[in-house]
């Protein structure tokens, strides 16, 4: 078992003819993902890496029975691509990899998302992976191993670091979800935690947050009130000065002091979530919790 992605996931890649889209389609196929179609306006009838390309997402979903999409289109067109995927019949998962989507575009996508049953992961995220089964996105498959630890993170490479620490001591993963580092994202910590809570094969969850916003605080309260599955946490950005954007558009401590690492760490600890000082310590906590 796993969340969001399993053997039955059939993927359409939006932007499959671009450099990133093509490269990562090949990587996803190599990992065993069922990439069944690509969608690029004006490119219908072509093939990329043996995958048929359609002009619209709806055609791709209908002809190839796709139920998920991965978005690799440039930032200026990413919101439109998300709308197209949310609108396509049969698709219930959209993974937006694109970095640099304007925030106001995402506010409109987020508004539409509230009216649908679709899960949107991202944007500005590495995607998600159910080890040994399928990956949707750009995560390096070889560092993951299959097991019972769920992982949810706002950062790509930090996810890899924690996974590496877990895998090294034999703690495999059920599903790892990179939710992205933007101010407005689709699937948030609480959505992901809820999925893991309801997955019988996820026995513990590692949650990697960072400075900015209040999602980690809200997630901490959710864990305290609603979760039986144990969670261990990590928060990046303890040393970040206020007012400076630390790479991610969302990673900024406001002038009034909201979004600090201290606030997030204490919210997690108050709700029974042990927080590691180092990624290695997160793996220690997970080992203790299992």
């Amino acid at each position, binding site marked *: 078992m796993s969340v969001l992605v399993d053997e039955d996931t059939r993927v359409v890649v939006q932007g499959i003819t671009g450099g990133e889209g093509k490269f990562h389609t090949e990587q996803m196929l190599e990992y065993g993902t069922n990439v069944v179609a690509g969608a690029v306006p004006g490119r219908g009838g072509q093939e990329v890496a043996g995958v048929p390309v359609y002009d619209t997402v709806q055609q791709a979903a209908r002809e190839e029975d796709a139920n998920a999409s991965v978005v690799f289109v440039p930032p200026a067109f990413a919101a439109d691509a998300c709308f197209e995927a949310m609108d396509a019949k049969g698709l219930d998962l959209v993974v937006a990899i694109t970095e640099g989507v304007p925030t106001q575009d995402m506010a409109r996508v987020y508004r539409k998302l509230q009216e649908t049953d679709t899960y949107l992961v991202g944007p500005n995220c590495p995607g998600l992976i159910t080890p040994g089964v399928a990956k949707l996105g750009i995560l390096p498959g070889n560092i993951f191993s299959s097991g019972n630890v769920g992982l949810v993170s706002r*950062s790509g490479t930090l996810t890899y670091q924690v996974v590496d620490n877990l895998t090294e001591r034999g703690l495999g993963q059920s599903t790892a979800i990179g939710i992205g580092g933007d101010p407005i994202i689709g699937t948030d910590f609480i959505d992901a935690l809820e999925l893991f809570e309801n997955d019988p094969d996820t026995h513990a969850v590692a949650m990697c947050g960072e400075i900015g916003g209040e999602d980690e605080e809200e997630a901490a309260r959710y864990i305290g009130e609603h979760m039986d599955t144990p969670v261990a946490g990590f928060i*990046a950005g303890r040393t970040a000065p206020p007012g*400076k954007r630390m790479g991610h558009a969302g990673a900024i401590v406001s002038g009034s002091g909201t979004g600090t690492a201290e606030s997030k760490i204490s919210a997690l600890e108050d709700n029974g979530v042990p927080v590691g000082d180092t990624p*290695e310590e997160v793996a220690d906590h997970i080992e203790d919790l299992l």
Partner: protein
Amino acid sequence: MRLHEYQAKQVFADAGVPTPASQLAETVDEAVDAAEDIGYPVAIKAQVHVGGRGKAGGIKLVESKEEAREAADAILGMDLKGYHVSKVLVEEAVDFVNELYVGVTMDRGEGKPVAMVSTKGGVNIEEVAEEDPDAIAREHIDPAFGMHPYQARKVVYEAGVDRDVANDVASVLTTLYQLWDDRDGSDVEVNPLMITSDDEVIAADAVMNIDDDALFRQPELAEMSEEAAEGDELEQKADEYGFDYVRLSGNVGIIGNGAGLVMTTLDLVDYYGGEPANFLDVGGGAKADRIANALDMVFSDDNVDSVVFNIFGGITRGDEVAQGINQALEQFDEIPKPVTVRLAGTNAEEGMEILNEDLVTVEYTLEDAVQRAVEYAKEVQA
């Protein structure tokens, strides 16, 4: 990206928000001429992105030509909390009876814009939000519809604004929302919005922050942002190279890939008793040249005594990184600052073989690499 006050005021004035008469000056003579032209009293205001400009001596109210010269001379060229003042705005001083706050920002938790009005203007609104949150009236806007006229009225009346000026304040708020929406604002605000004894409203300050990710479709603002760019030489160099870079005050230089992992590396430097000198994210898929540029940047920071590379390859390849490090270091007769490298993920083993261990120290875990770099920095200081 944040516009300067004079730029934001121009944008606001063009959109129909009442602003005081003002002129930009870059020399003392220009400032004095502007003051004479506008008529006393005038305010002379430093154009830098520093909170609490007034308290720090960056804003002076003057009543005569002599005072104008003295104030302009004091402010132009001054160092205001680390920022060099090269421009002042000379502005008509407004005689007010009340000061309001009016603004629009993105509420990231709700995923919606929020319009805000408060009768506690003229002070730091973030402090008001913390100490007396009820003093700020808020109205969330549905991005699918935009702001309805009633919403502007509602938030103005909820804030307790006088009926005599409520329509004019609502009209300013409506304009600010339109600017926020049309120009990809992140924060658009007036604080204070002054109310005069004859019920005029005038924007005495102007804040306009633009979403960096939307500058590609805001060419006019992108041009203004180049003028507004400030920061030290290294931060400007980082812009040229296209790195996400933040300068800090410590002596351990940090280079990594991915915002979360770089932040984590900073935190670990602190955790192991060192002080981070910078945040530098080379981004995904960095090739050898980019890695060499990153090293050049961190080396050119005089505060840096030791450098740590922490690369976890996904789309970034360890062999490319290793080539970049060798390429950057081989040009030196003597390595200026000790470099510790940790590579993991895609092609990390190939990378480790390529690295010249005469030039760098190789560590295999994040924790070991950071501890080693902190030790080197301490040795230099000792």
